[in-house]
């Protein structure tokens, strides 16, 4: 197996299939740690991990925090201003202050695409992107890939259909980048206004036809649909979206009988996904959450355990 060479995890665009395999393999071991009576190993004892969240996200932050704690790293959470312009202190300034406290790694969530890049360029800490703007959310994609691989053994030839607001979704972008590297066939489906220009150039099939998208799918992933999209004229109404694109039990029948149902959370039940589907036997939504911790442990371990 290849060795880990990266200092940061920004995006799955710039990782190789070998890198992804290494993270998945490492995560497999960490999943076992989380199932123990004593869910803690001393691997990152003495390391400090800061959570710099400029966007509200309880789930991802808690998942990273647990991951760090189960590896015995110390953690601190910093609530950053959503925009530098508001507060007067720039993101980089905040990061330099964190660095001055001898923090080893920063997990950053920011509303602006590319914001983690500022920290990577401007400080010497390891940076993990926990979601930036519409650009990337690599650990979410990794845990999705991990979950699929656990169920099917491989992503080679697996048809993954992602349904919803592709345009504003960093989860979709990272999943497309990662899953294609792993050999999956990715289909994105949503209203034409929410399918971004040039998405096909990422190697996916894009369609507005939900029936065609779901037919023969091995994985059906619904994305969160935000109510603001109605005000911005991307959608005439949420009701029409529900009628046309909500993953209902009837629609799910078009997919393979053992298809997995996934969602990055938090779900809007009855909007992008019917409650019966989210809670149904095909749903692996809660397993995704469990796997998220293992993936994040693996990422922290690989980034912080490397010789500097």
């Amino acid at each position, binding site marked *: 197996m290849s060795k880990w060479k990266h200092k940061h995890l920004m995006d799955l*665009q710039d990782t190789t299939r070998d890198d992804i395999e290494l993270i998945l393999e490492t995560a497999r071991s960490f999943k076992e740690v989380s199932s123990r009576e004593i869910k803690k190993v001393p691997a990152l004892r003495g390391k400090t991990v800061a959570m710099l969240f400029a966007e509200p996200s309880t789930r991802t932050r808690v998942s990273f925090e647990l991951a760090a704690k189960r590896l015995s790293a110390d953690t601190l959470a910093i609530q950053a201003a959503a*925009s*530098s*312009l508001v507060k007067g202190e*720039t*993101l*980089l300034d905040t990061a330099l202050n964190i660095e001055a406290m001898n923090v080893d790694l920063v997990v950053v969530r*920011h*509303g*602006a*695409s*590319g*914001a983690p*890049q*500022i920290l990577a360029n401007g400080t010497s800490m390891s940076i993990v992107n926990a979601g*930036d*703007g*519409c*650009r*990337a959310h690599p650990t979410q994609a990794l845990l999705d890939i991990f979950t699929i691989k656990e169920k099917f053994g491989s992503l080679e030839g697996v048809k993954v259909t992602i349904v919803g607001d592709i345009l504003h979704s*960093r989860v979709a*972008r990272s999943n497309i980048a990662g899953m294609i590297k792993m050999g999956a066939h990715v289909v994105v489906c949503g209203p034409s206004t929410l399918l*971004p*220009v*040039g*998405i096909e*150039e*990422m190697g996916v099939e894009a369609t507005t036809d939900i029936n065609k998208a779901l037919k023969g799918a091995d994985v059906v992933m619904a994305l969160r649909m935000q109510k603001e999209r109605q005000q911005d004229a991307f959608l005439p109404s949420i009701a029409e979206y529900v009628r046309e694109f909500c993953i209902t039990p009837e629609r799910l029948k078009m997919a393979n009988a053992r298809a997995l149902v996934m969602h990055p959370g938090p779900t809007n039940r009855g909007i992008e996904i019917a409650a019966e589907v989210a809670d149904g036997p095909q749903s692996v939504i809660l397993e995704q959450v469990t796997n998220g911790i293992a993936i994040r442990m693996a990422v922290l371990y690989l980034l912080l355990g490397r010789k500097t």
Partner: protein
Amino acid sequence: MALLIKNARIVNAAGEDKETKDILIDGGKIVQIAPQIDREGATVVDAKGKKVLPGFIDLHVHLREPGREDKETIESGSRSAVKGGFTSIFCMPNTTPAIDTAQTVQYILDQARKVGLVNVYPVGAITKNRAGVEITEMMDLKRAGCLGVSDDGRGLMNSGLMRRALEYAKMAGLLVMQHCEDDNLSAKGMMNEGALSTLLGLKGDPFIAETVIIARDIEIARYLGTRVHFMHISSARSVDLIRRARAEGVKVTCEATPHHFTLTEEVVKSFDTSTKVNPPLRTRADVDAIKAGLKDGTIDCIATDHAPHTHEDKEVEYDGAPPGLIGLETAFALALKELVAGGVLTLPQLVDKMSASPARVMGLENKGDIAVGKDADLAIVDLGCEWKVTKEDTVSKSKNSPFMGWALKGRVTTTVCGGKLVYTDARAS
């Protein structure tokens, strides 16, 4: 006091002289051009081995004064201009307050005169406070010294208002300079819309935001029989539309910037905010079309859209950074690299785009040409000089250039404005 340029190899838009001559300047004018001139007491500049060009004229500069003197002042902008070989610059009205009254025009002219380095032509606003609602007192602006009006930074979205502005500006003898952007289509986009903006997760600004305004204004100008000038055009379709309109006799002129003929959207991948500019950097095909437009004459002028921003303003997330980059000091060398070395234009054609043509567009009859009786505005350039763009070398107050670190060839060594030596390259002396 008289100024004598010895051994001048003159390059005008009409062509390059075969042999060197001497140029005698007195009273701000060129008084004599001859193979050998001697004048007792004249200051002598030896241009041996260099080329002497008419001083460059930039139709599109942001001096930031009044209002944002931390980014640039009339003084620092003037210095930046003369270092780049510019002797006349048109400053855009998106200041605070906006240049929408004769008093503000007067203030800028007074400041520029005090600085005394370069001819500064304030461009008035089309609408009061650039709000796009009521047109400015254009007759008054004209009388105060404006030659053109623009709401730059914003396009004039209201078609009816654009019609009135063109009609009224014609009466006032002002050129309407349009910032071509439909805000509803550009929708706060951060970069060119396409596969790359999708990949980077940055909001896209599609080129149609530019072309729908160009197409609309061509129709209005055709209908009214008035002139209109399109600023900083960036897309292949824009070049097509303007080419066709000109062939049909519509009185349109336009300009393109060095960054739009040099860089593609690929540089945005770095998330370096100095690559964020409005209109955004576009694709290779667009860059090629801009070059083709310069070559076939569709694009009249090269203008820099010099837009200084402080380090603090730019050192933020891409989304939060103001658009714009500085361009006065790199324009000529970039044009040499991309256009002359790139086989798009000859050196005299470049002189046309950077001096003679902008003079024609703005009606500056005594500028843009080195000839007896013309204004003594000159740029003496060393085409072989190799240099590197650095923060230390940049005299603009702001350093927001995507060309930082680039190695360029061709540098202005001396600038003469109104018969006065206004710049001498420290490295040359």
